[in-house]
């Protein structure tokens, strides 16, 4: 009488599971070890539905198909944990700012706060202009974007980040891209997955990038991690705390996590057991808690802001109704929120600007809405007008500033006098604008820059 070894028909552990041929005692020992080591959350999900795309990336690099832009020591990475307990390296230095389309126009205080914080920490960065929109707006808003063009644009921008340091005579790869926009962040991660899975897509994109001269040794350049600025803020939150000058202890804050940040490619999003027991995406929430604010949960935490891409363009009735009724109203009525903190351009614009028209239907909530970086800058003493530029926001913020102990009237007077200086041509910048162009027709090599 013989019996067969288990054949691996049990696919509860995924198609990759094979019988090990271990003796029962060995198997038991191995299982005990695994159970002790692996994050519980990882055990509780059906793993064959969630793969770590980076493993595929390493295989393709090994096969000589792609080059991976690595996060190196110069980037001073901090390791964070994502949904399934995987590790993600977040670079904290030598960063290349990938700006957001809507951010600079609608919420200028948003990028300026990021740069201001980086200046404060003495972080080296490059805020160059040779970058394009990710064009995911087309993709989500009208459906006319196609995967080939989106993937090509993704790699084109990240290639520019890779080579940009050459303009300063530094080796390629010195600067690592930091994505400001939530939609770009989600879109790039989605495109990376498609690229890793489809040889056909890689081939088409390779042709396009070849024409643009944006291949590395004839290969596609893929970033090791796609990093959102809110992740940078998250891993920097304890250092930010060291520079905090404003007490946030009596502040009730609500968080609006962006759909494109945490719902798209969710396995890559940071969850932290010290932030709401790992039950909420950690970015922004972790920062606010570290700064001492009370983060209040509310029942529509999961919901979209109402931006909806299609809707903000063609059906704003929906956007404004959703934003007010499903988010702002709930945050005020339920959580008695003093401020709502977001981390994506579209969300903050939607949640802030639509509050004004709420007056038309007597829905007046006056809840200040801003990005986590703006709040962090305020907490570290940034000027509410000159730097955080809260006057661009539609909902009133004066009460909030009073609650934070910031004299807004004095700040406003300073700002008005500064405006006169600006009119006379005396303005301050966070960054030498001449450094912002590193290649292309507008590029002028600066004195002191070394030849590449």
């Amino acid at each position: 009488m013989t019996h067969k070894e288990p054949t691996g028909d049990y696919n509860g552990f995924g198609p990759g599971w094979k019988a090990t041929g271990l003796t029962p005692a060995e198997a038991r020992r191995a299982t005990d070890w695994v159970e002790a080591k692996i994050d519980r959350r990882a055990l509780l999900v059906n793993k064959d539905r969630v793969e770590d795309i980076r493993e595929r990336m390493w295989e393709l690099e090994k096969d000589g198909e792609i080059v991976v832009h690595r996060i190196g020591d110069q980037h001073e990475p901090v390791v964070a944990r994502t949904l399934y307990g995987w590790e993600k390296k977040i670079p904290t230095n030598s960063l290349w700012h990938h700006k957001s389309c809507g951010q600079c126009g609608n919420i200028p205080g948003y990028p300026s706060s990021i740069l201001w914080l980086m200046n404060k920490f003495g972080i080296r960065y490059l805020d160059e202009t040779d970058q394009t929109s990710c064009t995911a707006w087309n993709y989500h808003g009208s459906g006319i974007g196609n995967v080939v063009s989106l993937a090509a644009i993704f790699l084109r921008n990240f290639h520019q980040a890779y080579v940009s340091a050459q303009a300063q005579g530094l080796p390629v790869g010195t600067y690592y891209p930091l994505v400001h926009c939530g939609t770009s962040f989600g879109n790039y991660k989605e495109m990376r997955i498609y690229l890793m899975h489809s040889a056909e897509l890689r081939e088409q994109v390779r042709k396009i990038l070849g024409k643009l001269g944006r291949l590395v040794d004839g290969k596609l350049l893929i970033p090791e991690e796609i990093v959102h600025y809110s992740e940078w803020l998250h891993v920097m939150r304890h250092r930010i705390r060291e520079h905090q000058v404003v007490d946030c202890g009596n502040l009730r804050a609500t968080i609006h996590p962006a759909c494109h940040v945490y719902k798209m490619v969710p396995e890559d999003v940071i969850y932290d057991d010290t932030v709401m027991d790992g039950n909420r995406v950690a970015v922004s929430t972790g920062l606010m808690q570290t700064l001492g604010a009370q983060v209040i949960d509310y029942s529509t935490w999961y919901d979209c802001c109402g931006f909806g891409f299609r809707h903000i363009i063609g059906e704003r009735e929906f956007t404004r109704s959703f934003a007010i009724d499903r988010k702002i109203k709930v945050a005020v009525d339920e959580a008695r929120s003093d401020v709502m903190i977001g981390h994506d351009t579209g969300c903050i614009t939607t949640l802030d600007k639509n509050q004004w028209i709420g007056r038309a239907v007597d829905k007046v909530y006056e809840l200040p809405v801003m990005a986590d970086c703006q709040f962090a800058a305020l907490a570290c003493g940034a000027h509410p007008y000159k730097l955080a530029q809260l006057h661009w926001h539609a909902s009133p913020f004066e009460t909030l500033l009073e609650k934070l102990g910031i004299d807004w009237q004095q700040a406003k007077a300073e700002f008005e006098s500064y405006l006169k200086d600006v009119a006379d041509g005396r303005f301050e910048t966070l960054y030498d604008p001449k450094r912002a162009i590193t290649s292309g027709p507008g590029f002028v090599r600066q004195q002191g820059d070394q030849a590449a």
Partner: protein
Amino acid sequence: MPIHEKSLIRPENIIRHESMNLQGVDVSGDWSTFIGSRTITDYNEDMQDEIAALPGGEYIHRCWQCGSCTNTCTVNAIEARFNPRYWIYLIRIGLEEELLRDKDILWQCVSCNKCTYTCPRDVVPEGVMKATAHWLELKGHTPDSPSTIFDREFSNQIFATGKVEEGRVLRRFFASTGQALRQPWLESMVIGLVSRLPVKMLLRLGLSAVLRPKTRKWSKSRAAITDYLQQQGRAERRALHLSAGEGTHV
């Protein structure tokens, strides 16, 4: 920016100002339009019990939502909103607000009994429709429907005399619903008939209008029926949590 799928939104959920100036800005029309929420936020726990307490509604609790009633329904075939299956669901889980949206057509059941014939759970949907229509009236959600007015005229005559004289019912119905008795279509039909009827017959019809047909020795039955109706009426009002004065039942 118009709402693209406006047909999917109930008109009462669109809040719109055709002309509005807000803090010096013209926000007329689309610029200030809001879409109200349609979220269900609670159930009326009493609804099923109340309707089950009215004659005809007794078996509503048996329904399993197979839809046989609506499939066979005579009225549904000409009015898609008339959906007994759906209303029974609403009543059973207590979505009063949703039911009230259809309050003005709910009474239109023609009692063809196809639903009751086909219902595998013996819910007697036809009875439920009657009970629900009465519930709407008793609760004051709708005025008495023409059907109820007709039924009442008709029933009252029977209760009073034991018989019915159709002409009288017709006249009283038209009077109490505020319609002219001389409906053009009715008139032309009667003229056509009268031209063919012999004088004796006409005389008989006329007499019956004056000498109303009666069942003899009816008074004791009438008293017993009246007594029963009063008691039933009180019981129904109690079941519907109405005070003695409320409700419009017979």
